[in-house]
């Protein structure tokens, strides 16, 4: 414990540590933080649910009794089902080689893995249009063989992979680095093969971080808007994902259905945050 140095107590009844702030400044700082986040984060959440239930429970349920809405939900589930496993596999591989080995160009590789996080989602969509669009590099060849990527599921999946590329790797790599590799080395020395080592030693060590990475990757892939809107073409009942469908409903002034569908995604976001909080304590203990 650090030594406690009392400064001469003035009006305060209790002496306070030299490294703690006065009650007034504490209240002011906490008040500012709570006020700012209440205004910026809590109020928008409240609005989403308030608008979703503007016409009561029936109005909320009615919003889902719609073919286009159900189709959008189904498409979004499909996109997430392809994107999340692929990016999880990549995240595991990337975190493994970055955290366990020293090699030339490692810093560059780490930076490049982070790059998609800083690229505009619009660019993430556009690059695939430039590649596979009608006037893109492979456009004519694809057309000849009757393969559709842009304005179809593959394009949506590709751009979603791009924007959710980083999450699993970014969460796992620092965690694995901090945990060290002594157990893995012990397992190998004792004669485990690579697969046994991964399955019995590494995976149990990283499971909570991995779980959070998967959940975050999933939430982002289900909610991606900008990148998908560039490649999807907004074809109703065909290429509209849930976020795109929300935009359509909103622009048609169907506010209750728009917010009802949006509230589902908001709920998913809240579940993600709760799971993050739960896994953080476990990740620290792991």
């Amino acid at each position, binding site marked *: 414990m*650090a030594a406690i*140095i009392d*400064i001469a107590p003035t009006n305060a009844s209790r002496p306070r540590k*030299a490294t703690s702030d006065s009650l007034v400044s*504490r209240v002011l*700082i*906490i008040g*500012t*933080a*709570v006020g*700012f*986040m209440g205004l910026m*984060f*809590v*109020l*928008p959440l409240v609005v989403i649910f308030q608008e979703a239930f503007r016409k009561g429970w029936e109005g909320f349920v009615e919003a889902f009794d719609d073919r286009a809405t159900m189709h959008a939900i189904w498409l979004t589930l499909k996109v997430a089902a392809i994107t999340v496993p692929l990016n999880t596999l*990549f995240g595991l*591989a990337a975190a493994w*080689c*970055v955290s*366990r*080995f020293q*090699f030339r160009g490692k810093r560059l590789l780490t*930076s*490049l893995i*982070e*790059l*998609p*996080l*800083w*690229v*505009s*989602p*619009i*660019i993430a969509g*556009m*690059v695939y*249009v*430039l*590649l596979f669009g009608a006037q*893109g590099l492979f456009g004519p060849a694809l057309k000849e063989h009757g393969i559709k990527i842009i304005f179809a599921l593959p394009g949506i999946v590709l751009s979603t992979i791009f924007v959710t590329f980083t999450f699993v790797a970014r969460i796992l790599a620092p965690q694995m680095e901090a945990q060290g590799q002594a157990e893995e080395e012990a397992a*190998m*020395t004792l004669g485990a093969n690579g697969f046994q080592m991964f399955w019995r030693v590494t995976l149990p060590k990283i499971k909570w971080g991995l779980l959070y990475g998967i959940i*975050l990757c999933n*939430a982002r892939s*289900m*909610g991606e*808007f*900008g990148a998908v*809107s560039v490649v999807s073409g907004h074809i109703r009942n065909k290429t509209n994902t849930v*976020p*795109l469908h*929300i*935009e359509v409903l909103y622009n048609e002034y169907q506010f209750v259905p728009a917010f009802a569908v*949006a509230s589902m*995604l908001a709920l998913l*976001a*809240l579940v993600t*945050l709760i799971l*993050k909080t739960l896994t953080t304590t476990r990740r620290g203990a792991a």
Partner: protein
Amino acid sequence: MSRPRHILPGFKLSLGFTITYLSLLVLFPLSMLVWKATSGGWEHMLATLTQARVIASLKLSFGTAFTAALVNGVFGLLTAWALERYNFPGRRLLDAMVDLPFALPTAVAGIALVTLYAPNGWIGAWLAQHDIKAAYAPLGITIALTFVGFPFVVRTLQPVIADLSMDVEEAAACLGANRWQTLTRIVFPALLPSMLAGMTLAFGRAVGEYGSVVFISGNLPFKTEIAPLLITMRLEEYDYSGAATIGVVMLAASFTILVLSNLLAQWSRKRTGR
């Protein structure tokens, strides 16, 4: 140096897979963007970038993202400090909420923000009484960009504040500094590099943001049209090279931000001795 022998397996496999996946899905597509933008030659690029509408949109995107980063710097610092140094009811909840912009889909945030800040919304109505226009104006864009960038500042600062050695603060107090002097001369200089790093990341995220902005911005050319939106307009007009040229400018900004935030992180480690 001789080549180190690895005890652990899977180096070639994991590195090979990582590089292949990265190249196919990110690097090759991004190089297409550069190729498409430059295919028309420098003059064509320059002609695109000097169009008044393009200049206006880039100015708006970079300007509002910059303002949002400044706002986030101030409130992010206070929030990170409160979360790390004080104990108060609801602290854990507040801490969890910081990540909301990561998890909440941008389109959902977009329609929620415009509903709040529209002239008939809860906050918009109050602002309208004071003749302030938020929705469909640059102010609204700045608010949306503040929303998306906030967690980057807080999450960059939190571990640095937690690791800040109390000894120096105690030493300062022993040597007769009052709390304000300690904070401004000892604590703040130690936090400054990571605060700037967080603000850089917030700026980087904000500059390319699309979903949460398009609903609140109003999308008027020359006035409230952000650069990512202009790119989608160009794409819809099949002006691929025009779209790619604006895209390359934004991509260059992304690279700069990545390099800058790495440099700031190094500076921070140097200052805090971690």
